[in-house]
């Protein structure tokens, strides 16, 4: 017996929800960033599952692009975080409130 497509989509949604929860409740910018990566991986899992169950290749090819974009995004995002840390000496989102006041 093989797992159904429903099971894969459920798992993907669950992983996405967990990542979303992390983005909502954590305060550390880097941990928020890791949770964002988790959400991206959940989306790729759904794409691969749909691709496999429909017998097409397009989802798989798109996962390539998602992985590339994710790698570029991580590099730029971490550079921004390091620049931010240099300017403000903190990575806690609560203390990064220059636009608020």
């Amino acid at each position, binding site marked *: 017996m093989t797992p159904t497509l*429903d099971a894969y989509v459920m*798992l993907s949604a669950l992983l996405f929800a967990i990542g979303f929860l992390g983005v909502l409740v954590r305060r550390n910018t880097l941990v928020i960033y890791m949770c964002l990566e988790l959400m991206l991986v959940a989306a*790729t899992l759904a794409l691969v599952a749909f691709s496999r169950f429909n017998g097409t290749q397009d989802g798989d090819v798109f996962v390539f692009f998602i992985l590339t974009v994710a790698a570029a995004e991580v590099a730029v995002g971490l550079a921004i975080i390091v620049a931010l840390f240099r300017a403000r000496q903190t990575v*806690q989102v609560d203390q990064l409130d220059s636009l608020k006041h």
Partner: protein
Amino acid sequence: MEQIAFTCLAFFAVVCALGVVLSKNAVNGAMCLLLCLAGVAGLFIQLHAYLLAFILVLVYAGAVVALFLFIIMLLDMQGGQPWKLRGLQAFGAVVSALLLITGLNALAVHGRLGGGPPEASTVGSSLELYSYQLFTTYLLPVQVIGFLLLIAMLGVIVLSRRTRETPETK
């Protein structure tokens, strides 16, 4: 057999994902992310996407998580509460959680995506098909991604260059 492997991998991935969210120490969080990615790579193998599983481990585990660990060790992670749940934020979190639970429930109850995978399909496991698609249908996205990588590289170089201290920096 496949069902058992799926259940184990899914459970492992979810537990590690929860570890990313719940661990107070950012290094532990990064390690949990690594394990979660390994679980997802296992699921990719089960979906016959061998190449993608390999690339996931190579790019994510090899490059992204390593980069995260470097930055965590570079920056000062101490101080501050790990959680923020006060007032409006707590309300927003509760509403989002309810929405997500409703969505998952709807998927579980009404989701009928039907059908097993096509048996004799070699789609996803054949490297030749990938390259064929990448160089025909998806040629433009490949070019665009190339430009994106170039621009991201230049952006990182500009961002991480040490700028002169200006009075407005503070």
